[in-house]
């Protein structure tokens, strides 16, 4: 894990979300599903974000501006510098035969990078509205469903599922495909095992998601 101050190249709206593009500096993008801690300008704590895409020389993060930290990140201007620390945690295992990417809402964030690394396998994505579903354009070969439809209606039960999305979606996916790889989320202060803030229940025990996950084959 490394920390660097990276320069913001651009922010682009994607439906209600913002794609934050930063110059990569000397940081490696890591494995899809791993995450970086991004300084949120003006806030005390950094915010964990998984890599959305890693084109040459760049890291991009898809951010949902739901609070003061994510709003500060989305308000970054080209030329701003932010501290970025990572890659952290455990990403997806890529040694799968019949990958199917399953995403819900802002959980689509790590799927473009994952899709690229897996050679653009099929994906199914669920969103709250057509506006949110504009993010589906980031994922090749994606079939999209909008509420009241649920993404689980589109899941091929025989596929190797790699999923990211809200907790109810992950639990539903796990019911359908017990050995699915699931990327979970929890509030994090540090991202490297120091704060014990991101505890989630994994197989009956509270464990730190930043160290044990965020991608797990079990429920969290």
């Amino acid at each position: 894990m490394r920390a660097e101050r990276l320069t913001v190249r651009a922010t682009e709206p994607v439906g209600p979300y913002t794609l934050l593009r930063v110059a990569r500096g000397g940081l490696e993008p890591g494995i899809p599903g791993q995450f970086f801690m991004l300084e949120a300008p003006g806030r005390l704590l950094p915010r964990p974000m998984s890599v959305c895409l890693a084109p040459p020389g760049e890291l991009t993060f898809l951010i949902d501006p739901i609070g003061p930290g994510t709003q500060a990140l989305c308000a970054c201007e080209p030329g701003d510098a932010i501290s970025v620390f990572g890659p952290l945690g455990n990403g997806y295992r890529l040694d799968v035969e019949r990958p199917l990417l399953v995403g819900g809402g802002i959980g689509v964030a790590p799927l473009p990078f994952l899709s690229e690394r897996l050679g653009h396998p099929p994906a199914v994505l669920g969103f709250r509205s057509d506006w949110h579903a504009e993010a589906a354009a980031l994922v090749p070969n994606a079939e999209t469903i909008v509420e009241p439809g649920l993404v689980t209606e589109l899941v091929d039960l025989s596929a190797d599922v790699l999923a990211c999305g809200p907790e109810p979606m992950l639990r539903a996916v796990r019911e359908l495909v017990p050995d699915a790889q699931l990327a979970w989320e929890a509030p994090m202060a540090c991202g490297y095992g120091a704060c014990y803030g991101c505890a989630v229940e994994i197989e009956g025990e509270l464990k730190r998601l930043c160290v044990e996950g965020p991608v797990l084959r079990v429920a969290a």
Partner: protein
Amino acid sequence: MLLLNASGCLDALAAPDVARSLDAFVTKTITPLPREGNRPVRIAETDVGMLNTIGLANPGRDGFLADVLPRLRSIGIPIWVSVGGFAAAEYADTCAALEDVAAIELNLSCPNVDEAPESAAEIVAACRKTTGLPLYAKLSPALPDIAAVAVAVQEAGADGLSLVNTIRGLKLDRATLRPVLSREVGGLSGPALRPIALAAVHACYRATGMPIVGMGGVATGGDALELIAAGAEAVAVGTILFSDPSAPDRIRGELEAELAGRGLADAAQVRGIAHEDREVNTKKPLQFA
């Protein structure tokens, strides 16, 4: 100046390089029995600091001694063990079981669990009987008269003070107007704690002259310098490690520059300078273990 981590703000096994950037590593508090800690949500950011209610998650005394401590030793830096409990005898038993560590810090002030019924001085006295290791008493900034408690733990046999623990705070979700944290309240750390810590160090140094590890919102070398001027001999960093794992090296560099700008070579020359022309109780020799 010795630079430590505040207990519970670093896992040396998960981040050994960060631990090695410190002069000593302070463990997360060890209790007699394993504790899973509190349910999520455990942390929340506020505009002036961070709230946590981790709840003393730890492997328990036996698990720590058998599994964790040997691995910590292999990192190769001095280890301070933070000891907690729910009765004086529990603290004392853990102290008795500890050998070959640099110091013991008695956590007498966790804001996120029920407290032991005995006073801080009674707990220190019980521990003093069972260990010859340096004993530091970690006190709460919420005490009505922290200097009086500092004197009491000094008389009970403490070798030093760790000042301060977090102070209780509450965050409500602005949309639902319900508490964000699972246990409603949590311990507030970060920038908001810094002037509170400074006042506690100032008062306790004046009253006892004891070795003090100052902590609370330290983010820069200048922050460390102020704690030293108030009477701290060592400084610990906590919340800043979450956003900046390289903070220890940075803070050392900033402190050196602050001292050099004053024509000073050593932070010890500044220690207690805020008390100049005031009488400091130095009945105990000023030594750092």
